[in-house]
């Protein structure tokens, strides 16, 4: 995928950039980073969360928070002009016209109280002298170029009236409408589901090829990297670890850190088979859930769901966002009451049970969001002991047990007195897992338990699941939208679409030989299906 355009003068040249906090900390946040990006080239910046990817790209836009961060050294040359030393006015003029940015969160990147048309239009209003009608024409045509349907209507819509993918397209339209020389994309697809992600990636590529734009693409998803990158910049805790050609990094990383990172990407190869001889722990029969009042606001979030989880088995539920995965899990957990159907837990139908105390002890739930499922005001010890104490265990004993469990998830017992914000995302997720397994449940429901994690941490957590299952024989209902993860640990898979199960069966069967077109589409949309990251090589064709 090399680009043959003028390769002499880079559009962006980052030279020895160092970024520090105000007041300066022990170590700068970003240290001595240098790399170039040429016209028409896509450079992917990868690295774990917190490695300084966003900070670096913000610095290029001159958008570092003034009272918190500051560039202490180096140059950022944009077509030869150092954006670190230009005036505030000049910087504003450069923004959007020469360098523009697409942010991570399409849901919050747009002003919720202005129509999206107005917001795109604003860019033209600031930087051009076009008439109102002229601007409108340009905006509409740009919207068409990012493949938005029914642009007239969308122009008048507010962000909340659009889907995540549509919002992200608006942000891209906004970034590209002035044909900037450089596009910075900070994890533009992380929050989107695979199908939408695929479309957005294609779109960026397409526009880039038309305009010859230089692109810096920040991500931690190696699948995405392998699809789009010309070159890769690997960062680790503020240091630039390695840069190189895409192919080279993926197949022959020079640094250990890069190797570790790349090899953490789970494989698409299914590994586990169903355990058909084990007793059934959970049986969901004909489960349906309707939200809202019958009539106009009614949503049928799950309909006629039937599946089984056996002892020691990990059953995955996959499907795109909004397909009803969490709904099913919440019904099983009785966090919401199912509209119809039975949830049989070890032979007892818990759907009609009123007092859930007894049930709660047997089933535990790991929430989708590792940040918000821990009370920020309570120490880890308090969180871990809460359930045990609720069920009558004396405090001392609970504390000891919590400490042991913490070690089980690879955290030292010494951290028990800390608060959630003092942990990284991966650590928090491990704490959440510890909180669930400390209860010694028979069934564990993990709702997107690893989706928010970096690949490296994800790999650790997945290994942890395997480990716990082996040690305790726990059954897990594992919800994910990441096929690689599902392939990695699930014995059986349930595929959901629009609230219905479209296909279920052994993981191997579903992934390698999907019977439903939806499953096939899902598999196709997964990035880099043909690369075997763990072994740094393309997958051998067909199984």
């Amino acid at each position, binding site marked *: 995928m090399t680009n043959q355009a003028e390769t002499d003068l880079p559009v962006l040249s980052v030279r020895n950039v160092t970024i520090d906090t105000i007041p300066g900390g022990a170590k700068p946040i970003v240290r001595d980073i240098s790399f170039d990006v040429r016209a028409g080239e896509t450079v992917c910046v990868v690295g774990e969360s917190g490695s300084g990817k966003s900070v670096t790209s913000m610095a290029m836009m001159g958008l570092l928070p003034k009272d918190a961060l500051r560039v202490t050294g180096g140059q950022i040359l944009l077509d030869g002009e150092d954006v670190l030393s230009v005036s505030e006015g000049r910087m504003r003029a450069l923004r959007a016209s020469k360098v523009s940015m697409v942010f991570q969160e399409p849901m919050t990147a747009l002003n*919720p109280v202005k129509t999206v048309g107005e917001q795109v239009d604003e860019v033209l209003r600031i930087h051009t002298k076009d008439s109102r009608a002229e601007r409108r024409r340009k905006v509409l045509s740009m919207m068409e170029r990012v493949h938005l349907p029914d642009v007239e209507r969308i122009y008048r819509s507010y962000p*909340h009236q659009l889907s995540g993918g549509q919002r992200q397209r608006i942000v891209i339209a906004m970034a590209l409408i002035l044909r900037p020389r450089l596009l910075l994309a900070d994890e533009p697809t992380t929050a989107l589901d695979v199908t939408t992600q695929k479309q957005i990636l294609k779109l960026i590529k397409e526009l880039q090829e038309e305009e010859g734009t230089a692109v810096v693409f920040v991500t931690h998803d190696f699948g995405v990297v392998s699809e789009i990158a010309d070159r890769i910049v690997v960062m680790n805790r503020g240091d630039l670890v390695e840069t190189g050609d895409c192919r080279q990094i993926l197949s022959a990383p020079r640094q250990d850190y890069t190797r570790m990172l790349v090899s953490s990407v789970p494989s698409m190869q299914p590994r586990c088979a169903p355990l058909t001889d084990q007793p059934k722990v959970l049986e969901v029969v004909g489960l349906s859930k309707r939200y809202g009042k019958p009539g106009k606001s009614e949503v049928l979030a799950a309909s006629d769901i039937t599946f089984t989880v056996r002892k020691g088995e990990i059953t995955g539920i996959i499907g795109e966002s909004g397909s009803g995965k969490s709904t099913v899990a919440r019904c099983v957990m009785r966090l919401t009451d199912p509209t119809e159907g039975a949830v049989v837990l070890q032979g007892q139908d818990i759907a009609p049970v009123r007092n859930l105390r007894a049930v709660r002890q047997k089933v535990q739930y790991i929430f989708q969001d590792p940040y918000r499922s821990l009370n920020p005001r309570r120490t880890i010890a308090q969180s871990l002991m809460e359930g045990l104490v609720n069920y009558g265990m004396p405090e001392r004993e609970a504390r000891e047990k919590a400490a042991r469990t913490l070690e089980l998830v690879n955290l030292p017992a010494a951290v028990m007195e800390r608060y959630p914000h003092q942990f990284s995302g991966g650590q928090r997720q491990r704490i959440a897992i510890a909180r669930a397994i400390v209860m010694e449940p028979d069934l564990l429901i993990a709702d997107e338990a690893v989706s928010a994690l970096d690949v490296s941490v994800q790999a650790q957590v997945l290994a942890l699941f395997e480990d716990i299952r082996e040690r305790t024989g726990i059954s897990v209902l594992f919800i994910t939208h990441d096929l690689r993860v599902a392939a990695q640990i699930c014995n059986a898979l349930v595929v959901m679409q629009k609230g219905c199960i479209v296909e279920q069966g052994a993981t191997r069967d579903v992934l390698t030989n999907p019977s439903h077109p939806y499953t096939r589409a899902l598999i196709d949309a997964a990035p880099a299906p043909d690369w075997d990251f763990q072994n740094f090589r393309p997958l051998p064709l067909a199984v």
Partner: protein
Amino acid sequence: MLSFIIKRILSAIPVLFMVAILVFLVLRLAPGDPAVMIAGPNATPDQLQQLRESMGLTRPLLEQLIIWLTNMAHGDMGTSLISGKPATELIMDRFGPTLALSLSTVVLAIVVAIPLGVVAAWQRGKVLDRLVMGLSVLGFSVPVFIIGYVLILVFARILGWFPVQGYQPLSNGFVPFAQRLVLPSVALSFPYIALIARIVRTNVIEVMNEDYIRTARAKGLKESAVLMGHALGNAAVPIITIIGVSIAMLIGGVVVTESVFNIPGLGRLVLESVLARDYTVIQAVILLFSAIYVVINLVVDLLYGVFDPRIRY
């Protein structure tokens, strides 16, 4: 939307009903009766008793309550026990000044407080911010009557720009009307300017952390345009809420301001009526205030929808 409005108005009925009963009971439990107030301090017990009877105050409480509620249901607010005039007429008479005072106060408060708050948010932590916030605390730690006296002293007595007191209806011309409204509105608006400015500041600062503000900056917008164009609009809902609350709280200050500036408004009417135990008038005025409160809340909720397209009814 229409159905929302209707629903809200219907749901206000129990509130008003409750207020009505509550006010009725509170008043009847209060010592003192209007008969004494009519007959003067030196009236004889016989005379008082006769007066009470003729005013219907000797009937059982429940009966009085029912009579009153029935009359209310027929739109009859009763007549003042003291002046003998229909309560509605008294209220109509006094409504204009209070409305003018309240409206001009609210408008003034908004017009002054929002820029102040935005500037403070923009200069967060800097001298200007400290100054604005310090002054705002002063704004609600000085009683309104003292602010009133100071304003009268400076602007009416020393500078002679405005009359000391009084009220002229708009029908007598805009200039006399406005002249007499400036000082009272300024005095009354102080604590609200303080309150609203603080809320604006806090919320704008909060909004300034949002992702879309970063997006706006990334477009190359000036900081002022980011503040006014993007931050303020998103901080609107809490700001409107506090403005609504302010209007509801206004009445306490209105009573005092009307006294200090001799404005013949509802605040004074209700105060006089309380002191004279003119039950019918108090009941009518408080019901009116409650109804206004309900309307304000409704308007506030509708404004939410105007300022935030995500909110729909």
